[in-house]
């Protein structure tokens, strides 16, 4: 059974935030105006969190690229009254925008704070409008949006695989963040398929998941040597 997941090697991550930019551009994520940003309404499905460790002068920064964890036991779907967010058979936690009523229960239930509410409809400048990705629908005012593991790429990959009468290969389906990462810190694939790189990496002794004790079973693993 396919279970799409991600492994992020923090020892390789330089915090360049290329994943953030790639994600915003791939998924038509709206830029919010400054006064909205001040209210904490910036939307960024992939966010590089920076964490300072140690006391001055002996400090270093740790970077945590944080997409949606696509939990196997997602707390967000349990509170959705309209089943607008659900987990699909291949483990991707989907968000169906036309069905979302904007109650924001899921945003409050998510311990990783990866769900974003559209307080206003997206406003695109003319130059932005020209490079919107036609494969991803823009969200309207009043709905929640979140990282989808770029599942629109899976839709295309699946179709291509079906046309060629074969299974979806690892290289057929990569989200924008994994594709752009210059240090290959972000690796994506099927966690249950031993031929995929992620299946091997998640068994690495450095592997951990954030807030694992909550029991949400995240499918995003982090590798970190320093504890």
């Amino acid at each position, binding site marked *: 059974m396919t279970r799409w997941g991600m492994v992020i090697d923090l020892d390789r991550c330089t915090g360049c935030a290329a994943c953030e930019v790639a994600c915003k551009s791939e998924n038509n994520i709206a830029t919010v105006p400054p006064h909205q940003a001040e209210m904490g309404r910036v939307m960024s499905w992939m966010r590089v969190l920076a964490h300072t460790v140690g006391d001055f002068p002996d400090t270093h920064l740790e970077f945590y690229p944080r997409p949606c964890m696509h939990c196997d036991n997602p707390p967000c779907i349990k509170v959705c009254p309209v089943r607008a967010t659900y987990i*699909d*058979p291949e483990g991707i936690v989907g968000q*169906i*925008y036309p069905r979302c009523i904007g109650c924001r229960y899921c945003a409050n239930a998510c311990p990783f704070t990866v769900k974003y509410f559209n307080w206003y409809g997206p406003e695109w400048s003319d130059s932005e409008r020209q490079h919107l990705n036609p494969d*991803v629908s823009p969200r309207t005012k009043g709905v929640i949006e979140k990282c989808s593991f770029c*599942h629109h790429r899976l*839709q295309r990959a699946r179709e291509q695989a079906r*046309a060629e009468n074969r299974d979806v290969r690892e290289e057929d389906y990569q989200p924008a963040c994994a594709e752009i990462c210059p240090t290959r810190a972000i690796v994506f694939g099927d966690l249950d398929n031993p031929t995929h790189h992620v299946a091997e990496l998640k068994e690495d002794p450095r592997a951990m998941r954030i807030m694992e004790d909550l029991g949400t079973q995240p499918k995003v693993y982090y590798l970190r040597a320093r504890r």
Partner: protein
Amino acid sequence: MIAQRLRDTRGRVRPYLVLALGIALIAAVVLPVIALGSSRVPQPVAFNHLKHTQDLGLGCEFCHPYARTRAHSGLPDVTTCSMCHTSPQGTSAEAARVTELITAGDLLRFNKLFRMPDHVFYTHRRHVAIAELSCETCHGDIAHTERPPVRALVKVDMDFCLDCHRKQGATLDCNACHR
């Protein structure tokens, strides 16, 4: 009867009833016109599907070449029509007009009847080439129409999709078609 009701017991006209009646009459005439008129899809020429598909025996893919390979099946443009219509064909006035338009350099841009909402992932390839559905499944009897329909012959909504997906045993997963 109505004239009686418009007057109160003392024979005076009840203005609010007249107003309500007026609004109802206007709505009855105007609303259907707005609802039907706005969705009419205009076409540059009155294309006769019946003539081309039956009398001339052309297949759908002659004018809609990408039905098996791409997301959108494609619409014919002036290059397709020019294969025959650079010289007058047949006796119909519309065919003569096509020749005139081609000679005048018109691009003959046909308009789409179907518009998928942007949150739906649909491709002709996976329905026509992979699932081997016939065109009539979603497009109805368009091949036998003599004038271009002003709206789609089959109402394709999510119920229509899901109904067929259930019958065919295709995926019912939201993420498979929504994006």
